[in-house]
């Protein structure tokens, strides 16, 4: 019995001694950290997506507290997060237009295939095999590289084409970097109208390889009253600084490839049904 008491007491006393010594040492060797740093880290969404350009949320928080980074750089946190950080640091935040990703292609089943691809299920791999399995060298391959890249699970492959869910996308730009064909772009979140094609092929050639691609007919450009849509290099593009989302170009398009955001949700719900 005495042995047990000795053992417990020895270890207990040793532990206590070292604990006290360490506590004393921590007072002497204390390092000063900015107390706002943990507050900023907590205000951030904590996804470590890197969209701000800094290594993870703690990297961005350190830069913000030092005053090197803009307060509104966090796309995932958005304006709410920027406001919180501004409050912690005691400065004013500017509002940034919230952006989201959009895949500029609706080919999928509509696009003609060059060959049957049976390799690794990855768009980058497929695009290296004889310029991809689609006749159109700009189209979405639908193999899901962007789906893997998205840390918010916001992209889904519907009818062979990638589709971004607006409610989950925060605009971190990971998919933009991942797409080997560079057809995902960032558009304002409230943009209702977008051109769902990235192909620069000439009209006649494009009709052969895709049922739905842009042929550069310029009917949309003529229909627009605000000079917001232009056809350059056989492809229509919307200038979102001028676009008022009136939808006249969508009505004018003979190929029906200028779509509204509501069309996308209905397409998704059709797939779910």
């Amino acid at each position, binding site marked *: 019995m005495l*042995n047990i008491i*000795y053992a417990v007491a*020895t*270890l207990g006393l*040793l532990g206590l001694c070292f604990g006290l010594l360490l506590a004393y*040492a921590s007072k002497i060797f204390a390092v000063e950290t900015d107390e706002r740093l943990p507050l900023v880290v907590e205000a951030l969404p904590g996804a470590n997506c890197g969209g701000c350009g800094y290594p993870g949320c703690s990297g961005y928080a350190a830069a913000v507290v030092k005053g090197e980074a803009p307060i509104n750089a966090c796309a995932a946190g958005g304006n709410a997060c920027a406001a919180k950080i501004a409050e912690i640091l005691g400065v004013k935040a500017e509002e940034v237009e919230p952006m989201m990703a959009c895949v500029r292609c609706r080919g999928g089943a509509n696009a003609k295939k060059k060959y049957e691809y049976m390799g690794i299920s990855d768009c980058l791999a497929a695009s290296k095999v004889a310029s991809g399995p689609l006749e159109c060298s700009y189209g979405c391959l639908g193999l899901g590289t962007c789906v893997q890249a998205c840390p918010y699970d916001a992209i889904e492959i519907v009818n062979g084409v990638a589709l971004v869910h607006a409610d989950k996308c925060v605009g971190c730009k990971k998919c933009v970097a991942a797409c080997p064909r560079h057809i995902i772009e960032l558009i304002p979140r409230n943009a209702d109208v977008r051109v769902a094609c990235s192909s620069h092929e000439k009209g006649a050639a494009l009709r052969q390889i895709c049922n739905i691609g842009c042929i550069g007919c310029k009917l949309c450009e003529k229909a627009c009253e605000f000079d917001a849509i232009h056809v350059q290099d056989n492809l229509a593009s919307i200038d979102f600084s001028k676009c008022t989302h009136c939808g006249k170009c969508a009505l004018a398009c003979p190929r029906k490839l200028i779509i509204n955001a509501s069309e996308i949700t209905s397409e998704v719900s059709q797939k779910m049904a």
Partner: protein
Amino acid sequence: MSLTQIFSLAISAILIENFIFVKFLGCCPFLGVSKKIDTALGMGLAVMFVMTVASAVTYLVNTYILMKFDLEYMQTIAFILIIAALVQFVEMVLMKMVPALYQALGIYLPLITTNCAVLGVAILNVEKGFNFIGAVCYGLFAAMGFTLAIVLFASVRERLEFADFPKCFEGFPIALVTASLLAMAFMGFQGLKLPF
């Protein structure tokens, strides 16, 4: 302990029975922190401090507390407690004095606590029955051997960046091959017979 005995102990601990290349203790920081010579040297110095002070304190605790109360079976846990406290202390000092080294060592600094080299030297001191001076010297020399090994390895690894070897060996595989070659080289010291 006479000076010749201490000298023999040094040769033995650093070369003949090198902790990394012969005893294979403490390989984790050896492989993990040896990409650059500066970090390797910093790690070596940190381990030197921990091993020396750990040898001293563990000897004292062992002789005057554990053996007094017939508590030898508690050596492992008591030694680990002492080593953990020491490493915490080293961490605090480094964070305050040399923050660059602290960042460079990263996770490998608290890993010195679980490093079998430090616990190994404490237990070897008990097994070999050294007195206080012997224990402290053995701890110091063993750590010097560790530092020698890690700095040698880091020097080779820095040059490996520019070497031309098969792609499948990149990273860890070629490091392990290098380590084994160094271990074979140190086998050359096995023949040394010392009067200790």
